[in-house]
């Protein structure tokens, strides 16, 4: 059977996210419970989590989470990493043996910073250098796969039901201000761990429910800007689009949402002149980044979380708020199970981005903490 990336696999899914605006750190317990309740939306062929604010002691270093098929791949990858990075710390990612999760690869974590000489030589900024290195490992080192590469955040994913994946990775032992989760329902899968979600690049992570009809148009457009879609999944291409628009073009989250789930022309025509001109401009310039077909996504980024539906809202998505907490999930039950009392619950409209970020005080605290 072909591995993920050699074949395109459509899938349905469940997603959930929890965000604390005041920056209070919480354990991974709640997110596991939230995604567990939507058990029937996944089929045991992939689950995963992204967690933000979990590595305060290493917050200035890129945290690489890597799957290895074998020791040979590990050796090759580590030698590559040593040539390009200062490795501050490395260890196995702690896991718990449970019968529901089997066939695990070697799972390692590295806290790294680019070697000054290599960075200067490459004439790239730090982030771009890291992205290039991640792509090189994933495409050139057989059996090695970097699935998380941001600072002060990490992705944990596997083949299995998401609640089992959470227990496998001992997620309850991590503390962060934001968690997202994904349960996968692929229509067929070779069961490769790298193919599970979230998909992440630098600090941006994406969990996604849907099957986008614009996939190949988006893929071919984004590959022109140096990205390589090795997994052939919607989530991967959405993550790259987000990264491109944010890091390379400099769009804000709200502008990114209005590119990938662009307002309809009939809506644009009713806008006041200046707003209309900007909306027209974005649709013209970033036509290749428009995403059509059903999707609901949660995009985690440094200090924030964005929920977005396709412009027709062909996938469910509910938002709940309670004090400084914001919950986003495919179904309301996934929110109620962890927070029965909510100040507000609503379903955002198609194409309407819900963006939450850390309060100023929390942001400052995260930046200054050691």
């Amino acid at each position: 059977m072909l591995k993920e990336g050699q074949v395109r696999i459509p899938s349905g899914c469940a997603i959930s996210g929890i965000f604390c605006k005041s920056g209070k750190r919480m354990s991974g317990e709640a997110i596991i419970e939230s995604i567990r309740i939507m058990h029937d939306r996944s089929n045991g062929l992939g689950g995963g989590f992204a967690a933000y604010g979990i590595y305060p002691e290493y917050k200035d270093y890129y945290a690489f989470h890597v799957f290895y098929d074998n020791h040979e791949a590990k050796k090759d990858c580590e030698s590559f990493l040593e040539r390009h990075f200062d490795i501050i710390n490395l260890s196995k990612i702690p896991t718990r043996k449970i019968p529901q999760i089997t066939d695990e690869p070697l799972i390692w974590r590295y806290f790294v910073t680019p070697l000054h000489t290599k960075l200067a030589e490459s004439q790239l900024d730090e982030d771009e250098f890291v992205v290039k290195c991640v792509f090189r490992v994933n495409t050139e080192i057989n059996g090695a796969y970097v699935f998380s590469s941001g600072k002060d955040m990490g992705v944990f994913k596997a083949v299995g039901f998401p609640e089992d994946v959470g227990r496998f990775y001992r997620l309850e032992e991590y503390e962060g201000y934001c968690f997202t989760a994904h349960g996968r329902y692929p229509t067929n899968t070779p069961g490769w761990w790298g193919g599970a979600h979230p998909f992440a690049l630098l600090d941006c992570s994406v969990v996604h429910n849907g099957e986008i009809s614009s996939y190949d148009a988006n893929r071919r457009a984004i590959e022109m800007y140096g990205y390589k879609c090795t997994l052939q999944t919607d989530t991967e291409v959405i993550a790259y689009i987000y990264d491109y628009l944010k890091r390379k073009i400099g769009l804000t989250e709200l502008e990114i949402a209005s590119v990938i789930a662009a307002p309809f022309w009939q809506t644009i025509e009713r806008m006041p002149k200046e707003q209309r001109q900007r909306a027209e401009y974005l649709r013209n310039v970033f036509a290749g980044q428009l995403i059509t077909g059903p999707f609901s996504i949660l995009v985690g980024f440094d200090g924030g979380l964005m929920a977005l539906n396709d412009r027709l809202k062909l996938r469910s998505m509910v938002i709940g708020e309670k004090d400084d907490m914001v919950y986003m999930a495919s179904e309301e039950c996934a929110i109620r199970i962890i927070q029965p009392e909510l100040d507000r619950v609503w379903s955002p409209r198609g194409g309407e981005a819900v963006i939450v970020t850390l309060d100023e005080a929390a942001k400052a605290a995260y930046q200054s903490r050691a």
Partner: protein
Amino acid sequence: MGIAYIYPPYEVVRNKDRCIGCRVCERQCANEVHHYSEEAGCMMADESKCVNCHRCVSLCPTRALKIVKTDHTFKENANWSGKAIQEIYRQASTGGVLLSSMGNPEPYPIYFDKILLNASQVTNPSIDPLREPMETRVFLGKKPKQIKRDKNGNILPQNTPHLELSMPVMFSAMSYGSISYNAHESLARAARELGIYYNTGEGGLHEDFYQYGANTIVQVASGRFGVHSDYLDTAAAIEIKMGQGAKPGIGGHLPGTKIVGDVSRTRMIPEGSDAISPAPHHDIYSIEDLRQLVYSLKEATNYEKPVIVKIAAVHNVSAIASGIARSGADIIAIDGYRGGTGAAPTRIRDNVGIPIELALASVDKRLRDEGIRDDVSIVVGGSIRSSADVFKAIALGADCCYIGTASLLALGCHLCRSCHEGKCNWGIATQRPDLVKRLNPDIGSQRLVNMLTAWNHEIKEMMGGMGINSIESLKGNRLMLRGIGMTEKELEILGIKHAGE
């Protein structure tokens, strides 16, 4: 007669029981096929003059007429077809180059017909275009590489010169001279009503049509006929014609007999003089020269209008397109080997160039591989026959399609391929006033609008069926295509999978 005799290819079949002797057929046929015989007391036909244009058939009030292919035959020969034999007879008689009109009719593969589309089932819903917005608006031109913001951080919409279309189809270049005043008026009015563009071709722009300038693409070809500053200023875009799919590598020749009255004025050449477009532009012998013309035209129009460079699809089309993309052009138009013409040497038309599907796929890929696909839009033509062809072209990577033959068919053309004779009974490819007036621009433009409105409905249905609600998400979306009955190599060039994969 005798050694030079060629048996007429068509027979005019008249049902004597139905014929009422009204003589409409006689009045309508510019080729003088029909006449009334006092002696016999009935209509007679000289089928040797018949071009099979169906004018008489269409206007016969009693349906007494039909045209059939003759069953007169040579001795069967798989190698020496009747056509091949007769062409030799013709050349042996005249010593001339064979001339033909309209696109290559030979039985080469038609790749559009070997491509199938996808549709949504279960995992992703199809979208009903009658209930939900379904968007077909496209922009042609360079995409800005960066965004700029004002001091409050708002994005400044600094658009590069571009064209905006309500749907991804335009009328391709057909000159005033090769087609009639009324045909041009029909195209211009339809373009305006549809929110798309028509193209003047290389014959200049009649002063009556300056009012349609906002929907007009003006052409600058090797003969430079009718090019002056008002002409450039009036247009929405300027097209440099480097080549034409029906006759790659050669120029054009409009005989002096057609250079009469307004045609002569519009082309800015004396009445009765032949209008000869040289094979190359004599100021463009290489790519760096093209760059100079592109920038001369931009300079002349204050960098406000997009410049299109039109080329014929030839073997190394992707390398040529890459050069054009780097020459400052905003749009590349590629014309496939089945593209139409008002007249071309038969051997050139039927043997030179490559299919547009393959040219498009390789150009789109090459420009993406080089990272310059955003620097140009791609428009393809020759031959786009239906909304399905448009759809497949967009999914292969085109931004827009040019239609020529299809638009003439909407105006009444019956594809008799005799344009070069100048006696078009439908009032399209002729300058004879009595024939031109047969084409009513009110009706002509309405029929063009009808056709493209129908196509747009069909495009929306197909998009909706695959769960796409905006045309930009179809562009280059080759995963929505599958080939059928193709070789590995053909699939590789088209960048698509085989059906079942």
